[in-house]
């Protein structure tokens, strides 16, 4: 069974789960061509 401390840890992790880091958080700000991730059709190249 999860101890109390683990339940608190889980709550904090769960909250963070809803605002995950973006890939651009680790990249220099690109003022000219910023990353704008959008879902593209699966039949387009994904890599």
């Amino acid at each position, binding site marked *: 069974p*999860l*101890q109390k401390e*683990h339940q*608190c*840890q*889980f*709550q*904090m*992790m*769960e*909250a*963070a*789960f809803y*605002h*995950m*880091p*973006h890939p*651009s*958080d*680790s990249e*220099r*700000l690109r*003022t000219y061509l*910023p*990353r*704008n991730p959008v879902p593209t059709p699966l039949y387009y190249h994904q890599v």
Partner: protein
Amino acid sequence: FDDPPGLLEKTEFLLREWISIHYSATAGRDPTRAFSIFVQQMNGHGILKTDDLITRFFRLSTQMCVDLCYRFLAEPASTPTLIRTKCFHTLDAFVRLIALLVKHSGDASNTNTKINLLNKVLGIVAGVLLQDHDNRLTEFQQLPYHRIFIMLFLELNTPEPILEAINYQVLTAFCHTLHILRPAKASGFAYAWLELVSHRVFIGRMLAITPQQKGWGMYAQLLIDLFKFLAPFLRNAELAKPVTLLYKGTLRVLLVLLHDFPEFLCDYHYGFCDVIPPNCIQMRNLILSAFPRNMRLPDPFTPNLKVDMLPEIAHAPRVLTNFASMIQPMSFKKDLDSYLKARAPVTFLSDLRSNLQVSNEPGMRYNIPLMNALVLYVGAQAINFIRNKGLTPNMSTIAHSSHMDIFQNLAVDLDTEGRYLFLNAIANQLRYPNSHTHYFSCTLLYLFAEANTEAIQEQITRVLLERLIVNRPHPWGLLITFIELIKNPTYKFWNHEFVHCAPEIEK
């Protein structure tokens, strides 16, 4: 506390001043000149006069940057891209100021000033994060801190002579900070923390570029921090989505390490398996499957593979954890050594189980790290003992020794939970061809052959089988042991009822 009057206003003024300088055209052309002008302004306001004032300046600045981000994050109808652009506009300037102060403080030869300042700033940011984490609880946001740490790390790892000269201390400072902010301490920062630890530049610096593998030990400690945090959630098997995401992210990082730095996983496998829960089979297999890149593994399915003829089989693997020191208390270690040497005191065997048992709570009855350390220590001693007699470990030379007394006693005397953990400790040594893999493979087969109850044989089979039915990768030593067990008629494996207890098992 006790900030001198007016310091907050001065700090805010200077921070605004720096941001406009940072984005000005002159800074674009000549960053160092712009910086030196600003340092004079800081001096003019007496900020650099004492250590205490510098500390207060950085704490207040960090606080201001963080508060600004929370305000942007709270703005309604703003897109993540826009929020980030606004936050990073300020944070990146603040980071640049820190990086320039670290680079240019003290004179070029005196690196201590630089490193002391870096440790101070990292400690301040970590302190602000932990306080924020404890105050805001589930409203805590990792974004500002993640940005400060990663951009500062990247700035301080640009290939410039001044920075290359202090790179190892920079890495050490970041590892200390990440250990302070380990997921068990700042669970709301766990995802950002893993991003930082697994960032391509961080991995490159810690595991590839830093000479003599000097970063390996620190990196291993960070992974152990991660496994320790995940353990209670993974032990529950029912993974909630936030845990699944972190677990899957961990698998990705381990796959990169397995592919690029298998020797790192080989060297630290023991410490990792000590903290990974026993039911986390695939992740443990991934670590145990690592083998040195210059080694060619013979196909485990080669008919009549003569394992003891392989050249590497006689070499002891590097185990960088001091597992002998983990056998506590000292009195127990003393009795152990005395029993190994002279098979006395005889009570050592009958007391063994009570030394290993820590509670009566099902699933938590045994001291797993002690069990693991005992098994590896006794095994390593056994190999030396056999070698010193000019022999090599095999099914006959490992028998009838004080070492095997201990293993057989554990197999017979422990309850099913204890025996499961004991057999796991042995199976954790079945890796690439080396003397430990060979000895423990023989030991497992010997325990199977000499078992006085079928339960022992059933649990040996269980421990091996659960490691084999998971998706790849599978450690080489595990495969050759199981193949020997099911193919060699000596073990009469297929005669046992537990092999036919269900179609899936038999298959």
